[in-house]
């Protein structure tokens, strides 16, 4: 179980290994989360690195009444939103991903998600609208609570509940179209 709080605290006291540990523990998940915004793995990776750089440069104060993951993902989300603002939807469609990127994605999924059935769910999620992908990623894969997800996505818990509900229905529909049944949904 990664302990981002401890690593971050050590980094703040001058131990650069702290940030190395944070990158090691959170990089893959954050990239996949950011990919739900930008739908481009290369850009998601850059934004992920940007988020770590912001952490390293600004050294924002982390209050320990929330999880470090929530804290980090909020920074990542800000980076993604800024990117989207600047690029006005100029994002690469999934179909345009090169073979290399597809390989990267598979590798990332294998290393981070591991379970095949969850990987299938993740693939299906990519057909959903961005907001659904985000909320599903945070609640289903990152196992954040609705409160934590609301903190990251800057929405009310009520909104998150609605979004999750709606996103699950959309995901279920998407999976059924593929002839896939998934009881957990």
């Amino acid at each position, binding site marked *: 179980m990664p302990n981002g709080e401890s690593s971050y605290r050590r980094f703040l006291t001058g131990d650069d290994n702290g940030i190395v540990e944070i*990158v090691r523990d959170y990089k893959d998940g954050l990239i996949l989360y950011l990919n739900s915004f930008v739908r481009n793995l290369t850009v998601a*990776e850059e934004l992920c690195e940007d988020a770590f*750089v*912001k952490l390293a*440069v600004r050294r924002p104060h982390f209050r320990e009444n929330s999880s470090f993951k929530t804290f980090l993902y909020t920074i990542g989300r*800000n980076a993604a939103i800024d990117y989207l603002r600047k690029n006005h939807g100029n994002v690469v469609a999934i179909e345009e991903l090169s073979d290399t990127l597809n390989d990267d994605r598979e*590798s990332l999924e294998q290393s981070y998600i591991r379970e095949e059935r969850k990987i299938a769910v993740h693939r299906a999620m990519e057909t959903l609208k961005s907001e659904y992908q985000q909320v599903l990623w945070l609640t289903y894969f990152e196992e954040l609570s609705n409160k934590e997800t609301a903190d990251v996505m800057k929405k009310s818990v009520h909104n998150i509940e609605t979004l999750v509900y709606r996103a699950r229905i959309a995901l279920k529909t998407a999976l059924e179209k593929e002839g896939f049944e998934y009881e957990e949904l």
Partner: protein
Amino acid sequence: MKNYEEMAQSVLKRRDIEIKRRRRAFLIGAPCAAAVLVGVVGIGAAVMSQYRGGRLDDLINYNYNPGAAGVGGSTDTSSEYVADSGIAEIATVDRPASSTAEIAVDIDPYEGNDIKILDIDGFNIPEIAPDLSNSTFFEYSLEELCDYYGIDINRLGKLHPNWETSYGKLGLYNVEFEIKDNALLLKPHGKVEYTRNNISYTTEGGASITVSAQNERFDPVSKEVFTYDKPTDPSKFTSETVYDDNGNPAGTIVFPIDPGDTGRVPDEGISTVNGYEALIYRSANGDFLADLYMGTRVRITAEGLSEKDFISILDEFTERPYHVTETPDIGTPVSTPSTTDIAPDMPVETDPPVNDYTNPNAGDTKIDLLFIQSEDDVKPDSADVLDENDFTPYSLENLDRFYSLRFNRLGELYPTWKLSYDKLGVYRHETNDGMIASLELVGTLNTLNYTTESGGTVSVSAQYKEFAMPLIGDHIATFKKDINKHIYPDSEIQYEYDENGNVIGMSTGAYDPSAQYVEGETNPDTDDSVWSRINGYDALVVAVLDSENNVDHYTAYIDMTSYVKITAYDIDQFTFADILDNFTK
């Protein structure tokens, strides 16, 4: 993709670069730290020269801790401007104590000069002139030379009009510029054979002074004392090419050189004069010579001057020729929470905004005037409930930075118009959601009012959030990029609960399903033909009619970096179109 070790190393490297950049930006001063965006059309050398020698007063004005004298051990808190395309905040940034010593390279021109006079027997100045017989001479005026060198080489003459000034023909030999394309803007082809020019002065007391300038290093005057050829790494101009959306070069950002850059090899014989590196010699017969590096190489020689007078002349020559008198007010630094508490709610950082911005989309204009029958159709702007305790006053200049646009552009373009405004500034309120303390911008609206010579009135308002716009058909107009937020208005959502009160479902109420559209598509309920485009910016331009169907006034809503609303009374539509064009160019 990078593995985690590669990414971590990259993060640390970028961290170090960013810290250096901030130090540099801090040294140069906030306004100058905003790199100067130079348009495509420009002359490379002149463009570069414009910023030569122009940093020192920034150091003076923004030297927040003059007592530090170069080294300090405490944690500095300085105000820093952080901007975002959509959100911006003034935030204070804690600088770690460990880096303070490197930050505080204060160079005070009045106290921090480091003068070292090197005593040598005599000046060994070669008398052999270069062979210029096959060169072409291009005569320059004194002003042109100043542009070329980037420094005012006749500064002493201007400061001392009583001195007798003399010079021979001024110009350059064999200058062949071939600016082939934008990429070569700062690297003109061709050869500059000989760029030296001299100006001589005779003071009231009969002392003689000569100022020489050239691109190349002067020959060392003495082999006794090293040092001019000793390897050093002086600051160089750095530049970045800026590209438009289509990947075409749209301009070049030229960063001012930083005289406080400590990257060079220290040499105990090198002096510092107003931040510029110099070698200062005194000959056995009491003459002085100084070689200065000011982007251009300058050699100043003097006969008949005292040491004090010569140093004074060096100080005068290297002083920035103009002063920024207004103390920059980049917003009152937020007093309480420690700055680091603000992130990650802080806006995502980008480079400091550029005031001197050349709009690459200028000319991309299509104005469709939408006539509105009555003002009743226009939804009034709701007044924010603001706490005056949250108000931070801003100067006009700082509002430019805050909005990332030239807020008072009309005032600059139409100096005869009478400008008025109420207090200027923003409201920011501290919130604490339990996880992160953040400063929320709760009010960003400011308005400038102009009265034209003919009695017309124009008001320009700007804010971060979208202005309430008129109805188009049954819908309140909104800029397309934000349109998705209107798909599921919260007020129309009905939740279903189980017996334990958990949400088990919801309905979105009765609304037109055709209003649901896929993200990225435009709203089919809005008519594209009513939207305008002004110099690349999306805009809605309306004419509000009075009861007799005459135009009462015009209003334009423009989606620039911030949202802008321009309203004009008693002005014809062509003038209004000009105003819109000028404001957004």
